[in-house]
């Protein structure tokens, strides 16, 4: 069972019912802040994630890079992505970004999901997959602007970081935060995290990283996982972190206008047909036409007989 109280749900996938709103605005929004400048790439967060969530990913292959595993999987919900970047001064920078679900305020996965209640958003901002409702269609993969959900080959369901919703709901920080040895991953109210990030950004800027900044992309309404980046002006440097992520217009069209167009088209065809029948009535063969058809058949038979006789 999903670990939530129904009062905490502010959005529920594929649901026509209104979510409980009695408490809206009173619950604190949480955020995980990942200070990339303090990350040493130890992967302790990956281990903690596997351990807490009781996941054991398959043994992979080493291909000569630090990334391990090579990509997020249904069993690896967070991943250190390593990028070697040669800055304009000619120095090498080793950029390490902990990738995983960003817990968007406007989640593309939730928007795309066709199964009622398979994806929920809690008042604290966490976006969670409720696995018992997942039908395994993979629409969340198409909805996500960050390429996060992964389709499991064993049970045909989609998985991603839960922001340790089970821990957060009992007042603990996520497992990755708990284990980070350098304090690069922090957790708290979104306001407090932004405030802390601003201090870090100021510090980085004073040390020569003019482009330092907070990554809290507004194209998806802001996120509940944020980064402090030394190069916030070029987030793509960090293994392709999108500069201005938003739900794809293709997904918007599919989940927005097309639904209305489709239902309108069916309704128009059906109602139009019905009205046509009621006003114009059926198209029936008249008895004269049946008679004329019979006459033609008789004439044709006669011609056949005649031609047969002529041949004889």
């Amino acid at each position, binding site marked *: 069972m999903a670990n939530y109280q129904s009062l905490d749900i502010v959005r529920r996938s594929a649901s026509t019912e209104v979510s409980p709103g009695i408490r809206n605005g009173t619950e604190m929004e949480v955020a995980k802040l990942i200070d990339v400048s303090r990350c040493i790439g130890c992967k302790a967060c990956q281990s903690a994630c596997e351990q807490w969530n009781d996941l054991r990913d398959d043994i992979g292959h080493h291909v000569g890079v630090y990334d391990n595993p090579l990509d997020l999987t249904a069993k690896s919900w967070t991943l250190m992505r390593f990028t070697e970047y040669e800055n304009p001064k000619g120095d090498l920078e080793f950029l390490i970004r902990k990738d995983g679900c960003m817990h968007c305020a406007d989640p593309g996965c939730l928007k795309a999901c066709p199964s009622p209640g398979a994806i929920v958003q809690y008042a604290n901002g966490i976006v969670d997959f409720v696995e018992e409702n997942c039908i395994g269609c993979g629409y969340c993969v198409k909805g996500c602007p960050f390429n996060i959900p992964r389709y499991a080959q064993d049970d045909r369901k989609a998985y991603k970081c839960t922001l340790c919703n089970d821990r957060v709901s009992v007042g603990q920080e996520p497992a990755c935060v708990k284990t980070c040895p350098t304090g690069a991953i922090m957790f708290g109210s979104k306001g407090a995290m932004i405030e802390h990030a601003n201090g870090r950004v100021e510090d980085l800027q004073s040390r020569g990283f003019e482009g330092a900044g907070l990554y809290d992309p507004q194209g998806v309404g802001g996120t509940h996982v944020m980064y402090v980046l030394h190069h916030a002006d070029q987030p793509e440097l960090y293994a392709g972190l999108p500069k201005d992520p938003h739900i794809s217009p293709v997904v918007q069209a599919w989940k927005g206008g097309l639904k209305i167009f489709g239902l309108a088209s*069916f309704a128009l065809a059906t109602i139009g047909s019905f009205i046509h029948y009621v006003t114009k009535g059926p198209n029936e063969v008249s008895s004269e036409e049946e008679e004329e058809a019979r006459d033609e058949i008789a004439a*044709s038979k006669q011609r056949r007989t005649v031609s047969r006789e002529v041949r004889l």
Partner: protein
Amino acid sequence: MSLHEPDAPVLRRYTAFLRINHWIAAACFIMLTLSGLAMFSPALFWLSALFGGGQPTRAIHPWIGVVLFVSYALLCVRFLGSNLPNRDDVAWSRRIVDVINNRDENLPELGKYNPGQKLVFWSQTLLIPVLLVTGLVIWDWYFYGYTTIQTKRVAVLVHSLAAILAITVIIVHIYAGIWVKGTMRAMTRGTVTAGWAYRHHRKWFRQSLAGQPPTAEPPRAGGD
């Protein structure tokens, strides 16, 4: 019904094989519509209950699609020759108001199919392959690794749009069978009355007379 008097002369329109295949395609199309709409609109998700729930709906939909494609491919081969556009179609289309008002006496004499029927044929002939190809792209269980996510996004949009058009055409197709009396038996029994053929497809009626004279009584089920 007066049209179906037992001694009315009838013409054979469809073979038993074609009729069975048509109904396989029709059953597949309806199941695909119901399961597809369940995954298309949250307001229609309840349709998934007809297939035993969301997961079975997701799992079975593409397989039914494959069956439809094979079935339709066979139909298409049989229908293609009679559905090529010709000059009569232009004249018929210009008199669409007479068509709507059941004034068939004002319409040009036609072969086996009228332009409305040809439109059904050609739209399905175009849309079903589009649905197959885009459907394979979003059949994640087998083909996830072959395309990018952006391609899948476009595929799911095109798949939905093609399905909407195909379903709309089929709604009109079904209505035409209800509206034009005496049509349905062509696909249920394989024959139409001579009067029906004379009224709606006179050229085809005369071609049939020249080729194969009508029987005086309807053939037994499956007897053709």
